[in-house]
């Protein structure tokens, strides 16, 4: 863990000179309706720490690298690769472990229908598809192929300094076994965030996001769990790079066969920290 902390410190320290300048992802989990201008490229690095089960020590790190390209001023596409580090000890239902795994790959397209800057409200459609090779709970093998369509709404206020974003979507996944009990799963997911640009280059806000899962696509008789997270986010953007730091607390959760009445831990954690860094080209 010391090595991990050291490397994160190194990564962050390299981006501190005040000569740098940038673009945006205001929130950790909620997406905006804007798209990259045609011919431009962004490279992102996400680092997510999921920690805090009902007992034991659990640390799930996700490291995602994504390259995004603006094909037109309205359509952008990206590809990403994800790796994980899972460490848990004395967590009920999980074997003790400390290992790296290859998480998977994904491709995403986003098409902007309305611009938040000139149409009064921003509207975009996002479609993500991917392959998950090891699950994010304890890094177990699976062969999960998924698609996740999302509708994105964005409304700006106060000369575009106050930004509100709403996401509503679903996820359809096949091949969750053997990591999970069931072969396929449906999820409803989304989020809402509001952020204010309080100083040149700096924004701060809050976001909430939720996810509910139904194995075997059975929405009537096979509910698995629902979880709601909420927390603050701070964002810095310069000319060539931006960074977003986000913390989310599980404010509500419930799952089948779980002891806790108000939080769910089978696939979720109490705390989620996310650092996103993006570079514009």
């Amino acid at each position, binding site marked *: 863990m010391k090595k991990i902390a050291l*490397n994160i410190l190194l990564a962050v320290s390299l*981006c501190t000179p005040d000569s740098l300048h940038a*673009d*945006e992802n205001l929130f950790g989990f909620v997406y905006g309706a804007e798209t990259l201008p045609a011919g431009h490229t962004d490279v992102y690095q996400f680092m997510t720490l999921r920690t805090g089960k009902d007992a034991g020590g659990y640390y799930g790190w996700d490291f995602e*690298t994504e390259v995004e390209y603006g094909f037109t001023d309205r359509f952008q596409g990206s590809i990403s690769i994800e790796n994980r580090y899972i460490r848990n000890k004395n967590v009920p239902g999980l074997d003790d472990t400390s290992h790296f795994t290859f998480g998977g790959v994904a491709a995403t397209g986003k098409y902007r229908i309305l611009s938040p800057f000139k149409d009064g409200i921003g509207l975009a459609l996002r479609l993500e598809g991917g392959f998950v090779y090891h699950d994010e709970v304890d890094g177990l093998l699976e062969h999960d192929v998924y698609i996740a369509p999302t509708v994105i709404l964005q409304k700006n206020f106060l000369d*575009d300094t106050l930004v509100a974003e709403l996401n509503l979507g679903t996820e359809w996944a096949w091949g969750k076994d053997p990591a999970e009990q069931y072969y396929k799963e449906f999820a409803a997911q989304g989020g809402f965030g509001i952020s204010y640009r309080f100083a040149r*280059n700096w924004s701060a806000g809050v976001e909430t996001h939720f996810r509910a899962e139904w194995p075997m696509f059975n929405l009537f008789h096979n509910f698995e769990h629902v979880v709601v997270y909420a927390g603050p986010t701070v964002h810095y953007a310069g000319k060539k790079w931006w960074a977003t730091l986000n913390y989310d607390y599980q404010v509500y959760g419930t799952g089948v066969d779980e002891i806790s009445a108000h939080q769910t831990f089978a696939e979720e954690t109490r705390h989620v920290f996310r650092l996103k*860094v993006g*570079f514009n080209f």
Partner: protein
Amino acid sequence: MKANVFLLTPAALLGSAVAGHGVNYMNVAQAQQAIFPGKAMTAAEVKLTSEQRKEIERQGGIRQRSDTVKAWRVAGGGWFIVDEVLGKHEFITFAVGISADGSVHGIEIMEYLETYGDEVRNAKWRAQFTGKTKSAPLQLDKDIRNISGATLSSRHITDGVRRLLAIHDVALKSR
């Protein structure tokens, strides 16, 4: 050792991206000569009253952030104003020349620090403002063409020109 491989990837990316200053295209004297070539100008101290700010916001349709106007009186009639509008992350500094008849004589982008959208410096796009008066709509997709991929900058500069025409009407033309 694996931890280093995974986590040094972002470190390397961060290191490689250490670059990028904003661009200062012209200073005040250069902008003055670009809009009113050969004209002498006199700096004018313009402080807006709260009533003037309210009227400017009513006419301009957007917030008047400052009560100070950086203005120069042009010999033979007209005004030269330097102002700022919000870019996505930084302020965009621009200058507008207003003729004695209250119409836009020309605009120049003096400083642009944003990652994208510097197409607003395009001479043809800026030429759309020439001749506009305070009675013009000055709105994207109406009388001002939007630049796809630079929508925020296009809109904020368009709003800014409309606001400066309101400032001219409220606080400058009668001086």
